[in-house]
């Protein structure tokens, strides 16, 4: 009997496994970025939280200007400022519990500090006395990560391991708009979704990857629209609206902690300074654009809201700024001290134990240093 002789009509593909298993609608971001400041909902915001955020923002801004100044004084090799992005930085840190982990990119020193890191230790990488200057386990902050997007799979793996251990630990990983183009972004989000790992991805979309504008980076409706392709719900938020970013991230963290899996958050923001102190931003953007964003400054937006609600007067502002100045002065003073470095440490952490070759090389350097010492003694 050939198939022509068989009765039966067309049947649909037999297996459901090949067909949509998730409803895509709830995964898609809203069209408008989520906002609280300037909306009716702002009235209900907790004054304590607002003041907490505000203090962090003011000190964060000051930290950015101070660190940039330190590059001019030769005290830092380089500094990628997050001026203009402080709301994202601070909200990312404050949305987490102590037991959670933060996975910052190279620009996210501020988030690391807001999480409790010593401000000088956090600058080790950029000062150049070592790579990671802090113990990642102490504040559960992964090393500031230079190769873009490569820390995202780390966050997924850590969150997955925590979940397997039965710990309700969440990982929050930060990446820029440019970093979303890397394969590691894709692989991290996919692993996170398949494993339902408790991880939150925060994309700080500041419109540029060094000089490359978003339009050359993606043709997507938004970066948040990438979520649905992994089965990950996505939120779009005004990244300069600190309470809004905080709320969205806190919600995502809660969801992850409760076993709901990963969330993708895109925060719309702007890097007001150049890419780093070494960059000349006028080559690729207009003053008008910068000015427009300065008028949407995260610190000012929150300041205005606090003032509107009568939660902040000039004296409070002055007090916060003074605290920030003290922090900056202390940072400057501490950074003006030359770090004490032992060149022999070069050989200490390559492996748990030095290999034979490393022992010989260490001997060589030790002898050279001793000879040089003698030379200067004479």
């Amino acid at each position, binding site marked *: 009997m050939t198939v022509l002789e068989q009765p039966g009509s067309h049947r649909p593909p037999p297996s459901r496994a090949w067909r949509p298993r998730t409803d895509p609608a709830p995964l898609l971001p809203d069209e408008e970025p989520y906002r609280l400041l300037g909306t009716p909902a702002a009235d209900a915001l907790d004054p304590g939280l607002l003041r907490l955020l505000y203090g962090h923002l003011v000190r964060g801004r000051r930290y950015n200007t101070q660190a940039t100044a330190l590059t001019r004084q030769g005290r830092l090799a380089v500094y990628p400022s997050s001026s203009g992005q402080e709301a994202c930085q601070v909200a990312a840190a404050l949305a987490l519990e102590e037991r959670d982990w933060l996975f910052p990119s190279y620009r996210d020193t501020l988030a690391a500090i807001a999480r409790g890191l010593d401000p000088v230790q956090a600058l080790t990488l950029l000062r150049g006395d*070592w790579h990671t200057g802090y113990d990642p386990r102490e504040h559960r902050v*992964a*090393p500031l990560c230079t190769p873009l997007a490569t820390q995202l799979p780390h966050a997924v793996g850590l969150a997955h*391991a925590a979940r397997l251990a039965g710990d309700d630990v969440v*990982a929050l990983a930060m990446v820029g708009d440019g970093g979303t183009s890397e394969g*590691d972004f894709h*692989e991290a989000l996919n692993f996170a979704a398949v494993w339902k790992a408790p991880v939150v991805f925060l994309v700080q979309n500041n419109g540029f990857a060094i000089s490359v504008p978003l339009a050359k980076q993606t043709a997507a409706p938004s970066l948040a629209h990438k979520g649905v392709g992994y089965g990950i719900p996505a939120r779009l938020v005004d990244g300069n609206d600190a309470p809004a970013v905080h709320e969205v991230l806190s919600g995502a963290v809660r969801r992850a902690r409760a076993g709901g899996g990963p969330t993708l958050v895109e925060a719309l923001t702007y890097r007001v300074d150049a890419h780093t102190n070494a960059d000349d931003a006028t080559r690729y953007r207009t003053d008008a654009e910068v000015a427009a964003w300065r008028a949407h400054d995260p610190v000012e937006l929150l300041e205005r809201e606090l003032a509107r609600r009568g939660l902040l007067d000039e004296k409070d502002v002055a007090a916060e700024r003074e605290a920030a100045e003290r922090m900056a002065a202390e940072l400057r003073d501490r950074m003006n001290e030359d770090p004490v470095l032992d060149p022999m440490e070069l050989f200490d952490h390559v*492996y748990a134990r030095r*290999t034979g070759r490393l022992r010989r090389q260490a001997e060589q350097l030790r002898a050279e240093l001793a000879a040089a010492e003698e030379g200067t003694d004479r």
Partner: protein
Amino acid sequence: MTTAVTATGRRPATMSQALNRALRDAMAADPAVHVLGEDVGTLGGVFRITAGLAEEFGDDRCTDTPLAEAGILGTAVGMAMYGLRPVVEMQFDAFGYPSLEQLFSHVAKMRNRTRGRLPLPITVRIPYGGGIGGVEHHSDSSEALYMATPGLHVVTPATVADAYGLLRAAIASDDPVVFLEPKRLYWAKADWEPDRPEEVPGIGTAVVRRRGSSATLITYGPSVPVCLEAAEAARAEGWDLEVVDLRSLVPLDEETVVASVRRTGRAVVVHEAAGFGGPGGELAATVAERCFHHLEAPVLRVTGFDVPYPPPMLEKHHLPGVDRVLDAVARLQWESEWTSGGAN
């Protein structure tokens, strides 16, 4: 440096079984050991090295990942940061390449960049080398890439017992280990008795597989059996060859190698990887430097040609075989033009 391992159970006969057994014993001994990779779970791996592990320890301990090698190694980094000991399987040598950024920029550097605070006890298992009739991209010998990267240990067994012992040592190591499995030895059989406790080599120790006095063959992994066969054949020519199995490319057991060559005065380095820029350069250079006054002839290299790995039907011409090893031995200036005053 040796690791005492007590292994009980039935006797495995092949290297693939010994590797499987090592994974199983390591997982049983330490709940922090997790296996992940493509097809390692339900299927037990395309070479069956992880067979039965998912069944025995559950999907969470032996996990079929999505198909993305950077993701596999990158998530393993995060798992290690949280205290686990991930054992990652790359399905074939060339298919590990997408993970090289994670390997070079993170796995190899994490301990160092964090001043020792964040060691990464990760084992990356990579089936490598040719001789199994694999099509394009299935027979690369990429060990030079790993050797050139400080922060990684690089290990490769040539015998069934070493496969077990070295894999246990790799998983127990607090440093990341690239564990290279010679594909064409997977089915090599041996009398191996896992039921009795035995001493297995630690990482960083070479072994003299055959004592000899005329010259030293320095080799590892898939080329060890070739060299042993060559050494047998060489007896007919009156050469008594010593064969050193490096087992560990990083750290390299220079002392064993150097002691051997200083005694024999002649050396040939043998490996499958392409010669130029391959592991043999380092090995020959080290021997030539450290044995300078003991050498009766230049250190020669017998390696794969400097070509992309050939298609199956031509691989026999590429792989260093017994004849090519013997040819090299013959060129070791047995009647030295040098002592006899001739010019090179």
